[in-house]
């Protein structure tokens, strides 16, 4: 009974809206550059996803708690300064503790700054909602971005390298699909993923 009631609270609805109904990748079509570019290996995808979740949550909390003080005409530049300071932190952390992953991700870590998901959530939600709901919204959106990235990355890594999180999963003699590790494979898989997701979620087709 308790759990049933949970589904109707505003907290849960805010979370699930970002998590499934308005999935960042499939419905809002935001942050696609990094989805395409980083999804060639699962470990890169996981590192990127966690980085985005971290930046999204902290920046949402800061913007939401400062929302009465941010002047309306300078809000974009304010978001940018907050976001890029957080991204510098993530970048330095990765460089120090996971130099291998940091090298593979290259400039894409810094490109979290211009990832439209983060800017979009600040502008659409955090700047006019209280702290608690901004947290749930950031969490839902960040998680939906991460699972989309991981789904695409797991298919691409198995087909392109024959591994899953660097563990060999396909038998010997499997022909590797090199094209899956490159740009065209990313485009085709994302198209298929969007197609399947829209089918399941029964979304209205775009014009």
């Amino acid at each position, binding site marked *: 009974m308790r759990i049933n009631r949970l589904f109707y609270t505003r907290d849960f609805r805010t979370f699930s809206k970002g998590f499934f109904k308005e999935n960042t990748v499939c419905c809002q079509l935001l942050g696609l550059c990094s989805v395409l570019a980083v999804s060639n290996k699962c470990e890169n995808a996981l590192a990127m996803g966690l980085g985005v979740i971290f930046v999204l949550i902290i920046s949402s909390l800061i913007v939401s708690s400062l929302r009465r003080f941010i002047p309306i005409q300078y809000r974009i*530049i304010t978001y940018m300064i907050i976001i890029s300071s957080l991204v510098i932190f993530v970048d330095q952390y990765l460089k120090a503790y996971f130099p291998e992953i940091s090298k593979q991700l290259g400039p894409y870590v810094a490109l979290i700054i*211009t990832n439209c998901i983060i800017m979009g959530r600040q502008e659409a939600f955090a700047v006019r909602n209280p702290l608690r709901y901004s947290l749930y919204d950031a969490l839902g959106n960040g998680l939906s971005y991460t699972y989309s990235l991981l789904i695409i990355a797991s298919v691409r890594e198995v087909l392109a390298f024959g591994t899953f999180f660097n563990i060999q999963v396909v038998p010997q003699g499997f022909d590797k699909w090199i094209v899956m590790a490159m*740009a065209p494979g990313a485009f085709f898989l994302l198209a298929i993923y969007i*197609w399947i997701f829209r089918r399941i979620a029964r979304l209205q*087709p775009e*014009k």
Partner: protein
Amino acid sequence: MELHPILIFVAAIFTHNIALTYLLGMCPLLAMSRQLNTAVGMGIAVILVMTLTSIINWLLMRFVLIPTGSEIMSYLVFIIVIASAVQLIEMLIERYFPRLQNSFGIFLPLITVNCTILAISLFMVLRDYTFTQTVVFALGSGVGWCLAIAIIAAIREKLMLVGDIPDGLKGAGITMVIAGILALGFMGFSGMVSIQ
């Protein structure tokens, strides 16, 4: 090894196209590619801003950030430069070329969050380009991005007339498929020049 500027220019357009090889600038590529006219307008705006900001960022990096040992702040500086350059260009166009404003001005605010612009400055730092190399690289990347969005928009315009696409693929999905086929085509250029 010192790379010749012409080599970098050709590579940035064809073999290392910023949209189709590095997969950057996808959000505007999806949103602005419905019509050829708007796509080309956006492309020209990107070329302009990209070249200008990369020049400013190179100068700042070389003469301010490196001498003071504050390379760690580079992301913050780059993004502020980009945001203010876009604002400045917008004001200049409004003041001196009011006729351009209608066709061109609407794209400018969107460019601030276009990841290609920031990416050019980041690649320039990663690869240690000289001043000429940076200018040529930025110009070539801009032209390459403009080419990619123009081709996609042209194909989408024709596709609208046929209009027999499954519901789930309409819009974003079919654009991804077009971009994928285009990327396969551009892979044919690889081997023409190599810059790595």
